[in-house]
């Protein structure tokens, strides 16, 4: 079985498990009293956001290691992680406003967290545009690595932005110092969903990595 086939199976398993998360979220997780059913968007929005952050951090790390080791496999992984991160960022940027409308009364507000997340999405798109624009593989990998490291700085700044600026967006309730501020039933659903998003991330990256590898072989012979 090739890496792409393994990745495809992982994605299929992940999608089936996502159905399981939906069942658990809808039928076995309590409705939040003040926000109503819309609060359950939390169980896809937050795992997608954390997976986006993870994808960008791994992309940046792979880029940083590439600058020292010059191993093209690291560059291919960074390329794959960036594209998958863009998809998860798109989920964050679409589910966020759908949740925000009934709770905040607006689809969008230009506060720090939302604006920086949009900026991160554009940076990830720019990363792929950059890769498409540079034909020399060595230069492309080097430029991409530098942009990838910048993206990691943006992720850290974005994560801390809710502490640094006045914002409508709630502060982290799980990834923060101290215990998570969630009832156990909600926390379990969130963690299960995060696990499913992680499986999907790995499955997508394996497939995308294989595409990058085959493209590289086609160019270099």
């Amino acid at each position, binding site marked *: 079985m090739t890496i792409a086939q393994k990745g495809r199976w992982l994605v299929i398993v992940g999608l089936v498990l996502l159905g399981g998360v939906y069942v658990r979220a809808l039928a076995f997780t309590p409705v939040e009293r003040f926000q109503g059913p819309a609060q359950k968007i939390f169980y*896809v929005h937050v795992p997608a956001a954390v997976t986006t952050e993870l994808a960008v951090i791994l992309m940046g790390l792979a880029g940083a290691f590439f600058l020292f080791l010059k191993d093209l496999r690291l560059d291919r992984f960074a390329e794959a992680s960036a594209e998958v991160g863009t998809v998860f960022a798109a989920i964050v940027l679409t589910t966020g406003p759908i949740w925000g409308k009934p709770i905040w009364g607006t689809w969008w507000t230009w506060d720090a967290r939302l604006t920086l997340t949009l900026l991160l999405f554009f940076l990830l798109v720019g990363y792929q545009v950059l890769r498409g624009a540079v034909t020399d593989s060595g230069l492309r990998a080097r430029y991409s690595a530098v942009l990838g490291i910048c993206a990691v700085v943006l992720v850290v700044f974005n994560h801390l932005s809710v502490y640094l600026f006045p914002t409508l967006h709630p502060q982290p309730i799980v990834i923060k110092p101290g215990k998570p501020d969630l009832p156990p039933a909600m926390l379990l659903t969130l963690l299960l969903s995060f696990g499913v998003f992680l499986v999907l991330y790995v499955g997508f990256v394996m497939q995308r990595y294989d595409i990058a590898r085959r493209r590289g072989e086609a160019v270099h012979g």
Partner: protein
Amino acid sequence: MGDTVPQNAGYLMAAYILVPTILIAYAVSLYRRSRNP
């Protein structure tokens, strides 16, 4: 007790349909590209 839980399940359904739609669209995109990289 005047507290009532907001009735906003439509937004939840919209988000819960959108997420697998994006994921499946991307999975199909990867499958098509893997056949012709």
